[in-house]
């Protein structure tokens, strides 16, 4: 108050008089508004009374929403991955029920209701308006239906309603691609806005079901139903038909998907297979997985607890996960040096077993004690020679590396049609300054050279870059939706995808790197030559192993002896057949051994399944 001018003294009498005048004006204004209201009601109730009287007497027409069938999801060959099956559910209109507790108790004698059902119902009831039906139990059994039919007259406001429910015939196999639908909750409704959607019971909560929810859902229609005095329906007067959801055809192949899971032989991890010519994802798994059917009618507490295991079955490692890429980054490092002109393929570097930065006593080691001797680009990839890349990265410097890897899409989401994709980490001066508020040290460049240190890449990012190597330097958006059909009488329309971007224009550079990757698989010194033994086609690939603990302390330790959570992550990236690639694969085996012993054999089995003639159809 001190800031106010003091010279202006308060005149208490004048204020009181002023207030009286204002109060009077205010009262008059309110009286006028009330008169206006009374006049408005007079018009409705007296002048237009007869019209409304008639409408009230004729008022036997209620709108009723029609929920369209949700779109089907198939694999690239038309195998059904998600379909709809008929079922019955129990609904309650709270407004029409006299005593809710007694009704629930009575229904519990006829239908198996557990505490979770009732808790969920009460939750949903609070979120919905009292005149709208709220589901109490979905998927009633035959016996329950029969018991309800006999006792229905005892429960006014309780209805048995037929509907279509979602089913995932392949269960766990496509969990991380298809995702699942779940019961609509209040937040979903608020997010959708349109009041018509309150007629929905289910909505996509994860995966394709969530990403393409709008297209799968279709449009809700309604019909005007004539009712008798008790409110029972007599007939339909007018119908605005619902628009069915679009059927989606995915890029994945159920046979390859099954082969991919089998290839892991029970290990945990993730894998992606991409058609390099199109960016279509042919198969993608994250293991362990879960059964999406559990979620449709509300997952039970026990099932939910089971999915919280440390192995994280709900976590899609391809999209949400990431790890340092290890030596799988080397082909791209080599490409960076070729493109920048700091290296030629034939140029050789000496590997003594340990690499030193000027002025530093601490060395950076090769994986083979004593080193690999003089190696060129081809040999550096075949044997995965660390010192070659230490030297190469120091020559290039972090800034040029950063710019090059940005071009290859590292550190950015790939744009796959699944929600929540991570960006990963592409280390740079800027990034380190932002994240740790620290300067970039030369040692950081050395670590980054072999995909260690700050690097984090998702399997999808590596898959996209690997597909680029197999597709003459063109980078494409990895995607899952191949085509869609907006109604059964509509044509199947291919899903438009953005044009690929030519990120590497020099074919000689690509050829040099790819030759090195071929040597990894088929060369006499290749780190993954065991995995390629006996193959009828030529493969290109690169292994990678990242430790969770420093190599120094555990130098001569068998990786399988480490505590489980500290064991290595084994990577493999590759494509085949080399002459005309039809598949690019990334494999990540968690808690495995090395890339060559744990990941490469998995990749080999996946490639075999795609390239060799098929064995037999998997049963859903």
């Amino acid at each position, binding site marked *: 108050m001190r800031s106010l001018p003091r010279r202006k003294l308060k005149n208490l009498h004048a204020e009181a008089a002023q*207030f009286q005048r*204002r*109060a009077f004006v205010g009262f008059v204004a309110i009286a006028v508004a009330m008169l206006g209201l009374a006049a408005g009601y007079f018009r409705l*109730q007296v002048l237009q009374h007869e019209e*409304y009287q008639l409408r*009230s007497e004729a008022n036997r027409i209620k*709108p009723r929403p029609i929920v369209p069938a949700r779109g089907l999801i198939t694999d690239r060959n038309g195998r059904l991955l998600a379909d709809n099956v008929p079922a019955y559910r129990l609904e309650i209109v709270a407004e029409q029920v006299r005593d809710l507790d007694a009704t629930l108790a009575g229904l519990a004698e006829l239908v198996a209701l557990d505490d979770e059902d009732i808790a969920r119902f009460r939750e949903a009831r609070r979120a919905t308006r*009292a005149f709208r039906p709220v589901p109490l139990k979905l998927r009633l059994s035959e016996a329950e239906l029969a018991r309800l039919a006999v006792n229905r007259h005892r429960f006014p406001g309780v209805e048995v309603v037929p509907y279509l429910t979602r089913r995932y015939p392949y269960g766990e196999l496509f969990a991380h691609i298809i995702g699942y639908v779940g019961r609509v909750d209040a937040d979903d409704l*608020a997010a959708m806005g349109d009041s018509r959607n309150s007629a929905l019971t289910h909505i996509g909560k994860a995966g394709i079901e969530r990403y393409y929810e709008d297209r799968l859902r279709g449009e809700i229609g309604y019909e005007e139903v004539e009712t008798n005095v008790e409110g029972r329906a007599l007939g339909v007067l007018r119908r605005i038909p619902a628009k069915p959801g679009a059927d989606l055809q995915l890029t994945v192949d159920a046979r390859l998907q099954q082969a991919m899971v089998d290839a892991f032989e029970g290990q945990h991890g993730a894998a992606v297979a991409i058609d390099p010519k199109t960016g279509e994802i042919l198969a993608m798994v994250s293991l362990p997985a879960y059964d999406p059917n559990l979620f449709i009618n509300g997952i039970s507490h026990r099932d939910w607890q089971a999915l919280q295991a440390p192995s994280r079955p709900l976590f899609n490692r391809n999209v949400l996960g990431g790890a340092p890429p290890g030596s799988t980054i080397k082909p791209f490092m080599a490409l960076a040096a070729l493109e920048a002109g700091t290296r030629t393929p034939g140029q050789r570097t000496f590997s003594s077993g340990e690499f030193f930065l000027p002025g530093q006593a601490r060395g950076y080691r090769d994986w083979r004690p004593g080193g690999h001797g003089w190696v060129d680009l081809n040999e550096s990839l075949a044997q995965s020679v660390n010192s070659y890349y230490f030297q190469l990265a120091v020559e290039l410097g972090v800034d040029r590396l950063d710019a090059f890897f940005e071009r290859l899409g590292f550190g950015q989401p790939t744009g796959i049609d699944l929600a929540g994709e991570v960006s990963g980490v592409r280390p740079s001066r800027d990034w380190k300054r932002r994240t740790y508020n620290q300067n970039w040290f030369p040692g950081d460049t050395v670590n980054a050279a072999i995909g260690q240190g700050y690097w984090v890449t998702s399997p999808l990012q590596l898959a996209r870059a690997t597909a680029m190597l197999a597709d003459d330097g063109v980078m494409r958006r990895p995607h899952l939706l191949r085509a869609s059909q907006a109604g059964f009488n509509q044509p199947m329309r291919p899903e438009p995808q953005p044009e690929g971007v030519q990120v590497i224009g020099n074919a000689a550079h690509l050829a040099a790197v790819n030759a090195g990757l071929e040597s990894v698989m088929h060369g006499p010194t290749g780190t993954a030559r065991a995995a390629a033994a006996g193959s009828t086609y030529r493969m290109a690939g690169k292994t990678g192993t990242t430790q969770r603990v420093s190599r120094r302390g555990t130098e001569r330790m068998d990786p399988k002896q480490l505590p489980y959570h500290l064991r290595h992550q084994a990577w493999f990236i590759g494509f085949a057949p080399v002459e005309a690639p039809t598949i690019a694969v990334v494999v990540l085996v968690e808690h495995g051994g090395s890339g060559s012993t744990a990941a490469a054999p998995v990749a080999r089995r996946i490639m075999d399944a795609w390239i060799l003639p098929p064995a037999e159809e998997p049963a859903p």
Partner: protein
Amino acid sequence: MSLLLRLARDLFSRLFEKVDLPLLLALLGLMLVSLVVLASASGDNARLVMSQGARFGVGLVALLLLSRVTPGKLRLWTPLAYAGSLVLLAAVFVFGTGRSANLWLNLGVFYLQPGELLKLTVPMMLAWFLHAAPLPPGWRVLGVCGAILGLPVAMIVMQPDLGTGMLVAASGVFAVFLAGIAWWRIALFGGLGLAALPIGWQFLMPYQRDRILTFLNPENDPLGAGWNIIQSKIAIGSGGLTGKGWGQGSQSHLDFLPEHTTDFVFSVLSEEFGWVGVVTVLAIYLFIIGRCLWIATQARDGYARLLAGTVAMTFSVYVVVNGGMVAGLLPVVGVPMPLLSFGGTSAVSLLVGFGMVMSVHAHRKFMAS
């Protein structure tokens, strides 16, 4: 025995000596109407009627207790009450729960809606500030008022709760109006407000835009709010001059009328008691508002005067907005019919507001001893 009787009489007279009997009777009349209409609207749901009665009871006790507190004490506690309610409002953003918007705080025993508190503390704070400020208010005073009002209103609208935000904003506008803001300033603000309407449109949530569009063209939303308004108009119009009679409203009893115990309770009243019933209830409302304003003019100081006057004028906004909404004269905004609609928080907070008015009355200028 006679001692007990005397004690009871003593207690009774001491509780009621401070209240303004005409105002109390009008409020009690309204509550009686509410219980009668709710009994019909809920389909003789005794539990619903009793729970509303219990809330009225709680509110009335609060009213009687508050009438014994002097406005001076209220004024002393005002800044603390205002700050406390702001903190609670901010807490909603962190811990809030609710169905489509997070408006509620779970206090373990019961749920609290801090927005409801601000309907009381904002007028209190404005009265507290204005009673010491030079009047009529200049730009500087108006600026401070704008800050006192703007912060909570912005927070409430962000929650989003447009109805409560509007009522709190209205209370602020009325406080400044009663403090004697110059007419030319009113005209200026009014003009600016009109000019800002298209900008405000951009800040509305999609569902709020839908409501306004639905109001302009109800047939566009046959399953949602548009249908509600059409059914409500049929209920009101078919009631006619004298109504269909208690418990005879077919619109509500056949479930054509939605939410007929809460936001649309006035439609039930209109259907069953006709225009005569409507005008009677509106007259009671007008009497309550007039009586409160009269009490305000009799107040001892500027704080008491502004507080009582603002409570009275804000009350009218409920009536006009809800009455206009159910008859399709105004867009749908979640504002209940005061003391008529089923719902506890607003009934209690309204009665607390009237308790403050009673306190002003009890400690007026020329107390008859």
